[in-house]
Structures are given as structure tokens and as C-alpha cells.
């Protein structure tokens, strides 16, 4: 029974790509988040439908060329915790 998450709607978010990072402006809160990879990629696959940590991991592995030996699932879990704590994603109750 995996926890499901939902990203903010794409119309509520403005992404601005900078060289080494991405700015994410979240309209409803007026907050700006400075995010590094893989956060924008996680948001992207969530907006395409991935909602559990394993679905997100699988989507990243499918759509991106990841570095050898990366502990993808644990990195995804750690980043989801951060994104949740800062309001970029919400938990979907079961």
C-alpha cells in the first residue's frame, strides 16, 4: 500500500530554468522554490501521472539517462519528503 502523492497543477506553477538550478514559483502560496535536479524531473513525471515512489522511480528510469549506481528509489523518497514539507506536492489520502 504505497503512499500516493500529487504535484501542484501545472497552471499553478511557473518554472524558470537557470543554468544549475530551476526556480519554481507556486502561485497559490506566492512562494518561490529554488530546486536542483532531480526535483523538476520528479514534478514532470508526477504531472504525467506517476504518483507513488515506485511509479516515479520507474518513470525517471524510463525517461532519463541516470548515472550508474544511483540509488534512485531512496533519492526519490528523500526528495519527495522535502517537496512535501515545502508544499510542492501533497499526500493523497487512501
Amino acid at each position, binding site marked *: 500500500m504505497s503512499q500516493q502523492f500529487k504535484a501542484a497543477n501545472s497552471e499553478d506553477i511557473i518554472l524558470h530554468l537557470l543554468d544549475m538550478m530551476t526556480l519554481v514559483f507556486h502561485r497559490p502560496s506566492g512562494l518561490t*522554490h529554488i530546486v536542483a535536479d532531480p526535483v523538476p524531473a520528479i514534478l514532470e513525471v508526477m504531472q504525467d501521472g506517476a504518483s507513488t515512489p515506485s511509479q516515479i522511480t520507474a518513470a525517471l528510469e524510463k525517461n532519463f*539517462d541516470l548515472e550508474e549506481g544511483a540509488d534512485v528509489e531512496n*533519492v526519490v523518497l528523500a526528495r519527495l519528503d522535502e517537496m512535501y514539507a515545502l508544499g510542492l506536492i501533497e499526500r493523497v489520502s487512501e
Partner: protein
Amino acid sequence: MTDQAAKNASQQETNGIVTRRRALMMGAVGASAVVSIKPALAQTAGSVLNCEIPIPGNHVSGGYIAPDGKIVPPDTPGAFAPQGRTYSGEEVKRAMRGSSLPGTSYEESQAYVNYVRRLQYGQSGFTCYASLQMPR
């Protein structure tokens, strides 16, 4: 794997069109990847701790606060009937370090502190609590 197969591992071929997948750095599990800029807190350092946290917030109607900070039905054994007052960020910060919130016993104060730790984005007091976590 042959050289050609290895090259193809990072490419996908659909209808004869080869798309190279973007490289994505995953980073380390423990390395933070998000920093937030909170315009409401662009104040003098002193006033950040004057922000307020109501205990409980207006999303709680009639529930009691359990020692672990969860909201439970009234009269749950061991849970505290909330006094329904507001504390400053400074008071909550001190309570998190061991002193008690004004007007509360140690156990009640710990329950309230745990309640604050469980606050979610969007609930009253969350932004004030989040600002307590930010390094100065």
C-alpha cells in the same frame, strides 16, 4: 554488451527517429535539493519570532490534543483539552528546546509542541513553524 548496444542504451528508437534521453543527476540521498524563498518573512530578524501559532488551528473543531500531537476525539484518555490560545514563534521555539509553553504543564506543552511539528502546509501556524526551522 556490444559498443553499439551500449550506445543504444541511452537512446530510444521510435519509427526510425532516435531520441537521446536527457541525462539526469540524481544527487545523494542526504543532499537537500530544495530551498524556499518566503516573501512573508522578509522582515527584521527579531520580528520573525513574533509570528503566531494558534493551538489548535482553525482546521481543528472540538478535538483534543494527544501526547504525540495528533488530534483525537474529546475525552480520549491522556489527551489534553486545548486551551485555544495563540503562542508566539519565540515561545514555541523555546518549548521545543525544553521549557514549557506559558500556562501549560510540561506534558501538555510537549503535546502542543508535537501538534506544531505535525502541522501541514496550509494549516494555521505552518508558515510560522517553518520559519523557526530556517537558519539565520
